[in-house]
């Protein structure tokens, strides 16, 4: 019995690995017990199930995405700090090579797929239905499924750390290194299955938001009257639809190689590893645009609102979004110019890559022109937007350097590249997500986040960013390669690496300040009683904060772009107030526990495949099939909110 337990502990829980694992186990256990105890003590289990786990309300799903994104930001950030700690000194022994490999793999994967993606979906969900005058997304039940697939996929990926071992072949997971022969053990399977499961949810979200934006707009909300954030979500969703299938195929084929012994990417029996690299980047490069276009959408809203001007060049903003959507899909080979596809292929992809700079430049100039002669207010969202412009211009310039194929042979896989993509993804995406979080926070929760603490976080994070990543450009040019776990003392890289680590810790402190800011503001934050704390321009600011669950008591008829702003200027805001006689019964979808259970079933199936436990895998898949069939036979999935109840709610909000 005892030896069986030790066997289990050593094989699956990795107890022979030493104190790092034991501490993690204890921390996880203590956190779990604390959560369970708190929920039991405050009698919140029923509340959790009824209000959150079974909800199909886009606003609540958005909040859950946001919480998950921030938690994953923390996990990915800790991974980053562990790496920077190891690299602070030459010949450091803080981490060994194997642990370092695992940590850079989980850092990259988590930051892209389990931090950036849920963060953009949080903003999709929170803002889009409100901006276009809809009561929910087109398919609320599917929206809940998307969330729970993401949630359980993230859980599956994170659990690998203490159960079976993390993947260790980089977030790009190139074969043949990731084939079973070179990478035995479940770690890589965790990567493949968790990405596959969250990918299904992501495709569903893409479908959902295209359908929502194209089919569920309020009357009068023509395409060219839509807020630019909604346009950005449309562009992002189109890219999701176009490229996620390639990721699905890449992951599935690699999984077949590992689980069933096929030969897609093996060296033996005619496999071709470069095919994985192509399929991966057919998705991987547009993935950057999936996340950054949404951030561009946030900047467009923020710049117009806080300059008190309509956005400069609206039509060119839309056109440039769509141009990036198309051109961004045909640049992927620039990730592996060194494959040696030949001068013709490399030239084509070098040119398309540089072409992306044109519509991006158009957007930068439009934001600047919007600010020109505007009455600028330096609020937190605006600060992050201004920081983005400076940061992203540098990222773009170094990007064009990398895009020059002959030069790329020098930069390839060096710290120059690491610095470049961190600048694009932090300066472009993270700044945008934080700006969006600050911007829509009052709409979600009914209070603003504290400005003073926010400024501390802003400056710490920004200065920390440059201290961390500028030295890395130089290190790259000095020959330091990415993913090396240590370096000898004689290379002359020590000082710059040490400086970079200081910057990383500044960013870590900034994150803690943001946490403190949230906690402080829950109690002391300025309450938003008007629903329009920023003097906004678009429809969501015509609603109270937080928004009632049916969103609009009466669906507005839209008469122009930035309609709420126009009405305020002309003193006609009463037109967007619901009139009691216009309020009718509203049909809303019922809550359902099935999306949550479907996530559990996918989790079980994923775990089964990770460890080659086919019984468990089949059990999980049967659960998925059962959920699908039960849904197909479900007809009574709506409930009616009587007009009287809506009148009552609106009256209590002082809107009648």
């Amino acid at each position: 019995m005892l030896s069986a337990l030790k066997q289990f502990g050593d094989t699956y829980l990795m107890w022979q690995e030493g104190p790092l694992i034991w501490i993690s186990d204890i921390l996880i256990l203590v956190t779990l017990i604390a959560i369970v105890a708190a929920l039991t003590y405050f009698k919140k289990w029923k509340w959790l199930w009824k209000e959150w786990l079974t909800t199909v309300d886009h606003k609540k799903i958005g909040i859950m995405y946001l919480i998950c994104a921030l938690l994953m930001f923390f996990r990915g950030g800790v991974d980053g700090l562990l790496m920077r700690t190891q690299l602070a000194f030459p010949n450091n022994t803080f981490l060994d090579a194997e642990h370092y490999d695992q940590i850079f793999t989980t850092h990259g994967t988590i930051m892209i797929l389990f931090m950036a993606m849920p963060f953009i979906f949080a903003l999709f969900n929170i803002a889009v239905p409100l901006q276009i005058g809809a009561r929910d997304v087109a398919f609320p039940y599917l929206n809940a499924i998307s969330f729970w697939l993401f949630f359980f996929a993230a859980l599956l990926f994170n659990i690998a750390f203490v159960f079976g071992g993390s993947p260790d072949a980089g977030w790009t997971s190139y074969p043949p290194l990731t084939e079973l022969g070179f990478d035995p053990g479940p770690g890589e399977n965790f990567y493949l299955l968790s990405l596959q499961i969250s990918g299904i949810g992501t495709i569903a979200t893409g479908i959902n938001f295209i359908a929502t934006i194209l089919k569920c707009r309020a009357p009068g909300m023509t395409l060219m009257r839509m807020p630019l954030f909604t346009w950005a979500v449309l562009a992002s969703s189109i890219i999701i639809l176009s490229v996620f299938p390639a990721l699905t195929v890449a992951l599935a084929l690699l999984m077949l190689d590992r689980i069933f012994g096929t030969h897609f990417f093996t060296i033996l029996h005619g496999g071709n590893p470069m095919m994985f690299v192509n399929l991966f980047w057919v998705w991987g490069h547009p993935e950057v645009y999936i996340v950054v276009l949404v951030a561009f959408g946030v900047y467009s809203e923020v710049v117009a609102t806080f300059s008190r001007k309509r956005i400069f060049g609206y039509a060119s903003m839309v056109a440039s979004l769509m141009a990036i959507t198309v051109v961004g899909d045909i640049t992927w080979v620039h990730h592996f110019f060194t494959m040696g596809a030949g001068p013709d292929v490399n030239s084509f992809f070098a040119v398309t890559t540089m072409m992306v700079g044109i519509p991006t430049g158009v957007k930068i100039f439009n934001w600047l022109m919007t600010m020109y002669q505007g009455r600028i207010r330096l609020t937190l969202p605006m600060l992050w937007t201004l920081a983005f412009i400076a940061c992203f211009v540098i990222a773009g310039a170094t990007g064009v350097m990398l895009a020059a194929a002959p030069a790329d042979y020098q930069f390839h896989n060096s710290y120059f590249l690491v610095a470049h993509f961190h600048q694009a993804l932090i300066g472009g995406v993270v700044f945008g997500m934080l700006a969006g979080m600050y911007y829509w926070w009052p709409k979600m929760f009914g209070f603003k986040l504290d400005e003073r603490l926010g400024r501390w976080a802003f400056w710490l994070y920004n200065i920390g960013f440059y201290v961390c990543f500028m030295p890395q450009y130089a290190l790259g040019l000095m020959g330091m390669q990415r993913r090396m776990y240590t370096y000898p003392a004689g290379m002359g890289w020590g000082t710059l690496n040490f400086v970079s680590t200081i910057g990383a810790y500044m960013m870590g402190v900034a994150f803690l300040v943001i946490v403190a800011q949230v906690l402080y503001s829950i109690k002391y934050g300025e309450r938003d009683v008007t629903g329009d704390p920023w003097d906004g321009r678009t429809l969501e600011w015509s609603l109270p904060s937080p928004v009632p669950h049916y969103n609009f008591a009466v669906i507005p008829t839209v008469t122009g772009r930035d309609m709420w702003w126009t009405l305020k200027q002309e003193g006609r805001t009463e037109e967007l107030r619901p009139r009691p006689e216009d309020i009718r019964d509203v049909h809303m979808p019922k809550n359902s526990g099935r999306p949550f259970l479907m996530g559990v079933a996918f989790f079980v199936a994923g775990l089964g495949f990770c460890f080659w436990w086919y019984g468990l895998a089949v059990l999980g898949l049967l659960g998925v099939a059962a959920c699908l069939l039960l849904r197909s036979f479900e007809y009574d999935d709506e409930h009616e909110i009587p007009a009287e109840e809506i009148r009552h709610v609106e009256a209590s909000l002082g809107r009648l």
Partner: protein
Amino acid sequence: MSMTLERSGVRMASPDRPLEYSRPLESTRIFGFWLFMATDMLLFACLFATYLILVTHTDGGPTARDLFDVPGFTAETLILLTSSFTGGLATYAMRRRRLGLTLSLLAVTMLLGIAFVSFEASEFIHYAHIGATWQRSAFLSAFFTLVGTHGSHVSLGIVWMLSIMIQLARRGLTPVTARKVFIVNLYWHFLDVVWVFIFTVVYLMGVM
């Protein structure tokens, strides 16, 4: 019942549209399904690309010409194309509100689908018997994955069609059940189109 568009304010749907489009929510769901088919098409496109790269990578094992049996895949093709035709007739019968005819045409479609999948399964089993498994070479990995993905789509379609027939028998033709009949047939046609490409790119080009 009409939820989505009503939620966004567009209240009435026109009565002269086909039954499956008669309510805005159902129409949005059909649109959503078209979007899904676009992603599924791209998924198959990636599998086709993989196959075309690996088709020559036989590693000294069986080639396409050694394996493919012309009468066999011709029969599969004819069965599937016929099932697509009967599926189309089912949609037509559904629009003319003929419940019994719709059900029987769906049943015929489903049976043809089962025949197709059985043919394909026996083809796969035969290949495995003569040593042409998907572990043998990259070409065979790609072949089994591409054709097998199509086959599992068809199998899923059969179960789905059965569940819709049960609902149809229980509830009769309503905008909801009509939409379901319409969508499952869209799916079926889509698989038919994919098969036309498999027939051409895999089988015909394989034996040429």
